[in-house]
Each structure stands twice: as structure tokens, then as C-alpha cells.
């Protein structure tokens, strides 16, 4: 079997866009994705001698990129410290004297299965997501959009499951209220 060789002069042409998209999907920040791709090429050039030729050039570069992305998450972890006692989060849920949520849940009159195809609702939700505090936004996206499990999120950000569930509950509730104000009332 012939050994794979590296051809750094062709890296940008062959892999830059692919690596950029791979990074962007994960870090959701174009500037950070640019930096990660640059850092990967930089590290790859420096450690060319460690390339044994057993995997393809592409696999080797993506392996380095994955490490860089994990480093990026680790270094931004400190920004995710959550203080549940602070007032920064979404409003707490209010209840009336009979123990019912106030305001009462409105009738959305939409089948959850069909809701996913409703563009107008999706647009309003996108706006509501932007209004969530940053930490709540990030955890909601990881859980509901990226589909990470509670365990994975808690491990990654070093938070207790009970705290995560409270945060997700508050985030969902704020989004629900936001949809009721901005979508239901304009239907």
C-alpha cells in the first residue's frame, strides 16, 4: 500500500472551505471558525514530521481541527458559569392564587408536527432566541437544536444536572411567552 504524503501548498484549495464549515457548524461564530482553520494549518505545518502516512491527509488535518475545536470550547467554558440566584436569567414563572400559571397558557391551535413547517412561527422563534440571555441561549441550543444529552452538557460545562434542568425550564418558558406575545397575538 502506498504511503500518503502531505502537500501543504494545496491545503487551502482542497480543504479550507470544508474545514471552515465543519468548524462553523460547531462554534457558530465565523471569526472563531476562521481562526480555528488557520490554527489547524499552523499546527499541521509545524508537526508535519509526525504524519506517518497511515491515514489520509484530509483525515489527519480534520483530526487536528477537532482538537482545536475542543480547546476552543474548553477555553470558553469559563463564560458559562451559571448563577441561578442572579436576576440575569429569564423571568421566573408566576402563579395565581389557585396555583395556575399566570398568564394561563394560550391556545396555540397548532399540531406540533405541523408547527415545524410553519415558517412564520420559525422566524418569530429565531427572534425570541436572540432575546434569551447568552448562557441560556447556548444551553438551549446545545440541548434542543444540537441534540446533546443532559449528561454531555453537564460534563462539558461542569454544571449540575439539576441546575441545567432549571435553566432549560426557564429558557423554554421565556421562549413560550415570547411566542405567545409575538406570534399568537398577531395571527
Amino acid at each position, binding site marked *: 500500500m502506498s504511503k500518503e504524503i502531505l502537500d*501543504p501548498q494545496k491545503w487551502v484549495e482542497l480543504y479550507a472551505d470544508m474545514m471552515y464549515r465543519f468548524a462553523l457548524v460547531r462554534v457558530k461564530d465565523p471569526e472563531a471558525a476562521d481562526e480555528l482553520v488557520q490554527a489547524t494549518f499552523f499546527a499541521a505545518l509545524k508537526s508535519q514530521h509526525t504524519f506517518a502516512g497511515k491515514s489520509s491527509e484530509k483525515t489527519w488535518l480534520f483530526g487536528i481541527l477537532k482538537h482545536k475545536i475542543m480547546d476552543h470550547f474548553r477555553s470558553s467554558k469559563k463564560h458559562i458559569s451559571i448563577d441561578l440566584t442572579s436576576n440575569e436569567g429569564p423571568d421566573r414563572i408566576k402563579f395565581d392564587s389557585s396555583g395556575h400559571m399566570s398568564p394561563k397558557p394560550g391556545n396555540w391551535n397548532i399540531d*406540533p408536527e405541523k408547527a415545524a413547517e410553519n415558517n412564520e412561527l420559525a422566524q418569530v422563534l429565531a427572534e425570541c432566541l436572540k432575546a434569551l440571555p447568552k448562557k441560556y441561549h447556548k444551553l438551549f441550543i446545545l440541548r434542543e437544536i444540537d441534540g446533546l444529552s443532559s449528561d454531555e452538557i453537564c460534563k462539558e460545562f461542569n454544571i449540575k444536572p439539576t441546575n441545567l434542568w432549571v435553566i432549560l425550564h426557564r429558557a423554554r418558558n421565556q421562549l413560550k411567552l415570547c411566542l405567545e406575545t409575538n406570534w399568537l397575538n398577531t395571527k
Partner: protein
Amino acid sequence: MKALKMTCEDVYPLISESRDHALPFLSRMRLKMHFALCGLCQIYQKQLETLCKVARALGKDEAKALEETSMSPEVKEKIRQWIIKKT
């Protein structure tokens, strides 16, 4: 039976939590009991389900849009020049 009784205030967090992990047996039973009596909590559960389905669809649309993005030509050129210099 009294041990199974819960107010809406107790139930709302559990409705959200049930999306994140398997609830303990007793909580599951309490939730079931409460749903049998409370239409508002059923509506709330359905709303959260709708909300999360729409969020997921939104994520898929974004991922699709991302597939069509590329790195800016300026950044690519900068890296290309830098690699030429170093090799």
C-alpha cells in the same frame, strides 16, 4: 393518594424536565395523575413540544444554509501566502 397530588406549580418544572431525562417513577405517576385532572398543564406540555420541534426545524434550516457558506477569499489568500512562505 395524597402523596400523588401536585399543584400546577409543582408540575410545570417536571413537564420541562421530562424532556431532559427520565423522571423517577413517583414523579411520573404524579404527573400522570395531574394531567388527568388539569387541561392547562396538558396544553403547556403540548406547547413545549411544539416549541422544541420548531427549534429543531430551525436548526436544520441553519445547517443547510451553512453548507453553502465558504471561507472568505481574503482569509484563504492570507493563509495560502503564509503556507508558501513557510514551506
